[in-house]
């Protein structure tokens, strides 16, 4: 086992977790994120928590970064030029013709990342079967090169129609561009994505070009700074589809890292589920502004192959983590029809909940939880003294317009509605994969997750809630457990028959050649569908042993599980996916909680949702807690508070997790 540092840059805080393999010691640190130059916050966290000698012993520095995402959010990226097939320059702007809000008469798409004057057309045409219908007009490419030089274009995306089936013209256009003297990064659509759907592939390629010139310099600079502090290991960057990329890969394929923010928590849940033998687990991560959830089956991350960020589709593997606007900072209000509503608007970190006393006047979920005793009044959150009076004052005005009796009942309603939102999101991720949530264990983490575990369990009829060690920092724990993963894909629409297998094998071999994964485990997946359908299911295949019948049976089983029926129709291959995985540390243990240092003990006045009444409830310190104990009660630790309602029992598990069991069905 090796010593590993994980650093996750979030919207508000940069979290560091270090696992020292020699001593088994865990270090954690938290520094404010420095949005203008994120590496400063990262280095500050390193300087605060990691002595130089220890840094020198680290084999891996796993980094979760939002640099790429922020470049998109703030539209601060390269000036990109696009070369595309004649007739198709407006693909990026035409999109798919739909609206984010179907009932908004005035909805307007965000401006395209490449303005129209920088979208150049070249005469050429390849058919869907890869045959060349019209040769590439090289003068068109040279004209584009001149235009880009005049306009100060910094990065170029080349996206030609049907290039997934034959990349010849894209490669030649890139060559011409180089010959014409263009020296900046060039992104080719068949390398970036290799999948069909020209709008989605164009978007992915343009995003790649747009963020690359920020990502590369940022990562190289961070690497240099770490090395100057004595770091001699490898810098890895987390990937939207799980695992991590090497620095060189991340700098070359930055679009693969853009949706990685919420992945670490899901990855940590997957590892925990595998360790504890939980067949079906649901990650329930409650932060300040959102609830993030993912379904983990047999310890595997749920993967999708198209994501979306700021309204832009990305053809890239990503872990299916769903986010809804229900977190500690979510604001409660009475709408004009007199119903009590919660979120998605959030008070954020500034001004924050009313109880922070920093000028926030609107009531939030945190205010409601404080009012109900779920957060002990003496609890210090990030150095802020919480004001129960401010919370009550903010909640009380909601009673009148909603017809609710008093502030207690308002607070109860706010927490129940927030929990119902969370439960809906869990239903979404389970039902869509044909899984009955009732058989799952809820893994509750994030600053506010352990407050909601029992409430979500009751909404979903779930009997088991697991609160991992370091619940508030659990996402960062996922970083130190990452594998090195690379992937590539190519669309190949054809029948799945005996003739298909050699073609698939050849394609997979070509994809693996590009991935260069020495010593890696190779995985092949196929996107399959019934002929006539459009949407696909992805199933793993073992090319050396599977025949067509075996693959078909696997698809059919997956289809039946997702949709509840089987169809006799023949199967079609749509996309071949190749993945290489280098497992760094299969047996890294769960990270135990650091010493609490929390003033615990005694009792508090706590609301029981089950009893709909107040109770005098014990407040227990997590450190040293063994249990079992029956709710209502609180278990507190530095980064989180666990709420256990009446009808639930809690005990400490050997792994360091709190295991909460529903004793009766409420």
């Amino acid at each position: 086992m090796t010593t590993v540092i994980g650093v996750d840059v979030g919207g508000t805080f940069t979290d560091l977790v270090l696992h020292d393999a020699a001593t088994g010691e865990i270090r954690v640190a938290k520094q404010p994120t420095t949005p203008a130059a994120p590496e400063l916050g990262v280095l500050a966290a390193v300087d605060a928590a990691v002595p130089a000698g220890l840094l020198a012993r680290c084999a891996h520095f796993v980094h979760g970064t939002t640099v790429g995402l922020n470049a998109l959010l703030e539209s601060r990226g390269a000036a990109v030029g696009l070369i595309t097939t004649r007739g198709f320059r407006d693909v990026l702007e035409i999109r798919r013709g739909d609206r984010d809000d179907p009932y908004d008469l005035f909805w307007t798409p965000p401006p395209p990342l490449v303005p129209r004057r920088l979208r150049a057309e070249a005469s050429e045409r390849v058919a869907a079967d890869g045959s060349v219908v019209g040769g590439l007009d090289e003068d068109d490419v040279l004209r584009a090169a001149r235009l880009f030089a005049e306009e100060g274009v910094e990065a170029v995306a080349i996206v030609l129609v049907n290039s997934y089936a034959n990349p010849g013209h894209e490669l030649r256009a890139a060559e011409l561009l180089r010959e014409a003297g263009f020296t900046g990064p060039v992104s080719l659509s068949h390398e970036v994505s290799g999948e069909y759907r020209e709008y989605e592939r164009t978007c992915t390629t343009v995003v790649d070009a747009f963020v690359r010139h920020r990502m590369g310099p940022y990562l190289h600079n961070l690497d240099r700074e770490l090395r100057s502090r004595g770091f001699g290991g490898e810098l890895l960057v987390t990937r939207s589809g799980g695992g991590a990329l090497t620095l060189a890969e991340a700098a070359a394929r930055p679009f693969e890292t853009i949706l990685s923010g919420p992945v670490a928590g899901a990855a940590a849940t997957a590892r925990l589920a595998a360790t504890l033998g939980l067949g079906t687990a649901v990650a329930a991560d409650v932060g300040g502004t959102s609830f993030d959830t993912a379904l983990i089956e047999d310890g595997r991350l749920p993967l999708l192959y198209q994501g979306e960020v700021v309204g832009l589709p990305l053809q890239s593997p990503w872990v299916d983590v769903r986010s809804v606007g229900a977190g500690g900072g979510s604001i409660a209000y009475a709408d004009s029809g007199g119903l009590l509503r919660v979120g998605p608007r959030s008070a954020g970190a500034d001004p924050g909940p009313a109880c922070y006393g920093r000028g926030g006047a609107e009531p939030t979920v945190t205010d409601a939880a404080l009012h109900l005793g779920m957060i002990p009044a003496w609890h210090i959150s990030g150095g802020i003294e919480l004001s129960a009076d401010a919370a009550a004052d903010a909640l009380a005005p909601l009673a009148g317009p909603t017809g609710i009796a008093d502030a207690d009942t308002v607070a109860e309603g706010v927490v129940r509605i927030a929990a119902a939102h969370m439960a809906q999101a869990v239903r979404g991720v389970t039902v869509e994969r044909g899984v009955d949530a009732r058989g799952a264990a809820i893994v509750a983490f994030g600053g506010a997750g352990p407050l909601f575990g029992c409430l979500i369990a009751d909404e979903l009829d779930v009997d088991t809630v697991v609160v991992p060690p370091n619940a508030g920092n659990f996402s960062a724990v996922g970083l130190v457990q990452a594998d090195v993963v690379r992937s590539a894909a190519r669309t190949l629409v054809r029948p799945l028959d005996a003739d298909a297998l050699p073609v698939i094998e050849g394609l997979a071999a070509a994809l693996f050649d590009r991935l260069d994964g020495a010593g890696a485990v190779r995985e092949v997946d196929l996107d399959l569908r019934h002929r006539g359908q459009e949407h696909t299911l992805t199933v793993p295949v073992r090319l050396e042993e599977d025949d067509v019948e075996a693959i078909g049976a696997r698809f059919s089983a997956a289809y039946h599980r997702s949709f509840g029926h089987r169809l006799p129709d023949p199967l079609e291959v749509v996309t071949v996916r190749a993945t290489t995985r280098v497992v760094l540390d299969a047996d890294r243990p769960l990270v135990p909680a650091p010493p609490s240092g929390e003033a615990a003990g005694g009792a508090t006045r706590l609301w029981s949702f089950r009893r709909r009444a107040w109770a005098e409830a014990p407040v227990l310190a997590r450190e040293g807690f063994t249990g079992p104990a029956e709710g209502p009660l609180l278990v507190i630790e530095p980064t989180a508070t666990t709420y256990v309602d009446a009808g639930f029992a809690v005990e400490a598990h050997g792994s360091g997790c709190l295991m909460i069991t529903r004793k009766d069905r409420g």
Partner: protein
Amino acid sequence: MTIVRTVYTEANPGLAEGADPVVTEIIRQGLNAAADQMKQSLIRTAFSPIIYEALDFAVAFYDADLCMLAQAPTLPAFMGTLGFCVREAVDGVGGPAALASGDVILYNDPYGTGSHPQDAAMVVPIFHEDVLVGYSAIKAHWLDIGGKDPYCTDTVDVHQEGTIFPGVKLYDAGRLVTDIYRMILANSRMPEMVIGDINAMVAGARTGAEALAALVRRHGLDTFRRSVARMYAHGEALVRAWFERLPDGVYTADSVIDSDGVNQEPIPFGVTVTVDGSSVTVDLTDCPDQVGGPVNCPLPSTVAAVRIAVAFLAGAGEQPNEGHFRPLELVTRLGSLFHPVRPAPCFMYGIPSDHAIELIIRSLAEAVPDSVPAASGGDINALVWWGTREGTGEPWADGAPHPVGQGASRSADGASALMYISESATRFTPAEVWEARNPWRIERLALAADSGGPGRFRGGLGLDLSFRVLEDQYLTSGLARTALAPWGLEGGLPGRPNRLTVEYPDGRAEDFSLKTRVFLPKGAVVHLRTGSGGGYGPPSERDPEAVRADLREGYITPEHARRHYPHAF
């Protein structure tokens, strides 16, 4: 002359009182989420692109009193029409007493669905401890269920439009009724696709039924009913609050439909909207008697048009329920364009319905100028294609709506190339998917420079699309608004109307609007030029910098700029 007033009244007055507002909100969210689950299930298992790409379907829950509990955001054009379907479907099989758990009712009578026989509904009754608590319903477009052509613009009665299933059990207490199944197969040109879609619809409606039953189980039937009543009251209050802001008065607008597809004569009609406090009456009696061609709009779709207009104007971005529509009253005339009677043909019902939506919105331009944009391209530009593949001899078919430019508003240019508002959630199929599937090469997919109506704010651009056909095939063109240019407002100029031109291999070219079964020989090119948005305010008031930016990006040409915006130079 029979005048019909369609109103929505509270089914259970007083039931809402005493409902817990917190539980009401939790149930409201639960209903919307369950409707969404039903939608996702259908999208992911459907066989025809009309369902999984064009989202030409609606999914909804109704309570036992046939009030709409929730509808997932799909095709606004079907907004609220499922209530009529459910009523007729249940009546067809003998009323609520004849229903059993496990039943699936098939219904596609155009006078109850509001549309053509291709739009077929599946209705699943939902029971809680043997009490009927509601229905899940899906209405989706089947590629073909008979009729004189797969898509018809020239029918003269409803019987030419497809096989009608007037409310029959496809599943009887969970058992497939094979006679009905075989009837469907025998009456479709594309039986495999249709059967695939039927299975997807049944699975979706059952998924929905289970989700709703679970919600009722969780909260108990009495709490569920009270909370739902409170939820309707809430929806009603939201819409009333919006209408309350409108000055009381009578607002009108009129327009002209190109033709009925059979008789090449323009069809004028008008809308009158009366605002009285928080109540609104929409009168659509100012129209001709039902016409000889298939542009008659059955009452359910007329109702939907009014509901869509209201949802866009006043819905506050919420998923609507029955309550949202209670402030509305609709007035129609039996036997007219907007309330036809059997056997008037109505295959292209969407043309009058879509036109009415935009006209209702326009009528309120004076009352709420900030909420009313200039006209959009105004149509869904439906094209339906079919043929037999060379080589394999397999039949194929495809069909899709196409985006148009949106009207400029008081504060912004119109958006370019978005689906018409009645299909606003619909996605346009990528050219690469089309080419992998159909014998086509897409030669052009571009915004049309200069097409946006000039104004202080200009209209959104229309789309230029060229399809080269690589094998012999047929096309039915469903284009409307080809004669009437999209109107500007407050001095803004009109945009361009929709246009379809077929360029034959011999060099001949011909334009079509409503035309069934146009033969396209291999090598022909179909040029679709979709309408753009009208402008808002006089062009002379356009910010010169905006004119120069449009010129720089090529959204307008120098000639167009000099002609309409000389002040910018």
